[in-house]
């Protein structure tokens, strides 16, 4: 295998940087159940990294480890060259990791705008007193962040539903709002858990375009879990394949596609 410590150039000519996050020998157990078994891989600056695998392979658990929701039983997580100690999820978020959820996790009682504004919470610093009086720092900050959020609203083409309570939106739009909330955090690393699940072809195309655009425009590193193989193969630069909590493949899409273990895992093995 060639040395990639200085990054590599993708098939479509994008320069990928050095290692942003590295998972070293991650194992995750719940009681006696092993969800992830000794997995290592890295995520490079600026790349789109997919995690695929059959249902129950441990993909979402892996995403939860990356986002700090689960603390791995064994193994190390390195982020930006520093080993990440045991952290609360909100501390991980403050390091610049944002995510969307498999089952949409929006704040239903709030408007689209407020939901997206929550993405910027970690960056808002005005004190309680200033907020209470809505004067000075609090108001300036609110307006400055609103401008940033409006840019994301434009980017994702959801201007017309700005003030709509999220609970009233259809599924596809909710997914988009959730992405907007994650983007509002201007994350270094964006985790997408099945961003296209339950969408029709048109919505999938829209979502794919957004993902490519934001990787291109903002240089955001993206880790995504997805079942639609067509989407995965088109979007991602490198793919991790998981099965029963183990890693069975890792590499560029075309390489993974021809990997015998991966084919077995997806199609079943003929025992003859």
């Amino acid at each position, binding site marked *: 295998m060639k040395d990639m410590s200085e990054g590599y150039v993708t098939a479509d000519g994008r320069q990928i940087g050095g290692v942003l996050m590295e998972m070293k020998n991650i194992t995750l157990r719940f009681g006696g159940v092993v969800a992830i078994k000794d997995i290592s891989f890295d995520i490079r600056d600026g790349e789109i990294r997919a995690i695929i695998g059959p249902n129950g392979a441990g993909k979402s658990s892996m995403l939860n480890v990356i986002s700090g929701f689960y603390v791995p039983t064994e193994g190390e997580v390195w982020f930006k060259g520093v080993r990440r100690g045991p952290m609360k999820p909100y501390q991980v978020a403050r390091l610049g990791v944002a995510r969307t959820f498999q089952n949409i*996790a929006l*704040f239903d009682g709030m408007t689209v705008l407020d939901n997206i504004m929550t993405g910027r919470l970690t960056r*808002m610093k005005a004190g309680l007193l200033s*907020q209470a009086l809505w004067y000075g720092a609090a108001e300036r900050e609110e*307006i400055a962040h609103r401008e940033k959020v*409006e840019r994301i609203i434009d980017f994702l083409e959801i201007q017309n539903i700005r003030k709509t309570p999220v609970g009233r939106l259809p599924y596809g739009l909710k997914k988009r709002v959730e992405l907007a909330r994650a983007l509002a955090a201007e994350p270094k690393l964006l985790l997408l858990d099945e961003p296209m699940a339950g969408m029709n072809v048109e919505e999938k195309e829209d979502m794919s375009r957004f993902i490519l655009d934001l990787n291109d425009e903002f240089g955001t590193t993206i880790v995504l879990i997805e079942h639609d193989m067509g989407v995965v193969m088109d979007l991602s630069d490198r793919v991790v394949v998981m099965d029963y909590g183990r890693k069975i493949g890792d590499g560029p899409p075309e390489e993974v596609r021809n990997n015998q273990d991966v084919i077995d895992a997806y199609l079943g093995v003929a025992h003859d």
Partner: protein
Amino acid sequence: MLYREAGDFKTTYREDNQTFPIRFDRIAYYTTVAAAFAVVPFFINDYWANAVFVPFLIYAIAALGLNILTGYAGQVSLGTGGFMAVGAYACYKLMTAFPEMSMVLNVLLAGLVTAGVGVLFGLPSLRIKGFYLAVATLAAQFFLVWLFNKVPWFYNNSASGQITAPERTFLGQFVTGAQTSASAKYLFCLAFVFVLALVARNLTRGTTGRKWMAIRDMDIAAEIIGVNPLTTKLSAFAVSSFYIGVAGALFFSVYLGAAEVGESFGIQKSFLILFMVIIGGLGSIFGSFAGAAFLVLLPVLLKNVLVGTLGWPTDLAAHIELMIVGALIIIFLIVEPHGLAQLWRLTKEKLRLWPFPH
């Protein structure tokens, strides 16, 4: 036709952020505030002050407080009565220990003391949720009432076990004690309500409010996007308890004048405030006022009709009031879980399009 937003364009985010984006609403709001400060004080008499206005204002503060905790931050509390008692007793101790201190300061400090106690009882909210927490707050309710009943230091060893508010003035006017005029009571409370409502509005529309609502709507997701549940929940408990403490201090010193803890701040009080919040509208500033007004006016109205007009016995009227309040709670939860505030919002939405709904 007057009530519309067409042609009322916002060109800055600042304008878009204002509390009343529709011009008609703004005018109505300023008129109400002006009337409350400049007109009502000249017409108010003792009956109206004691039966309607003063309790309404004080309960509105308490309802705002509970709404911040329950409606915005999603933490149900049944300890409101106990926290009001903390405010009342803190105010009493401050009034008697520092006779020279300004009454405004007394009330605010009582609020701060309550905020501290609230944070203490809010700590379990980090581990327990939903109605487990609701029941846990009953611990605060019963323990605090017991404490103020059993420890003589809190009521300065008075023989009756009651606390009685000494006379205090503000700006040369009596605001506590027997000589207080109706308009002084009213204005003193109104000033607190006005400022606290503004603060509540500002807190809930900004960063803090979004954190509270994020925790309320989905606590796990909130934590993952960077909300610290510890500080967020405790800030909700602190702010909420501050409001409730101020309400308790005013309830005792300005409204009642003398109080006995079990009677004035028992569990029934907790439920009363909770009902105000539910009927008014969870997560709505306007709802806190609407709910307080509704539950202050309802008994007055029922009493006037059933006892005054029909001549029924008082206890029967009281029982029927219980039935009506209980039934209303259920009806609101079924028909309109967002309370009077939502009804008001829907009416406004209809008005906006009237008379051409399509």
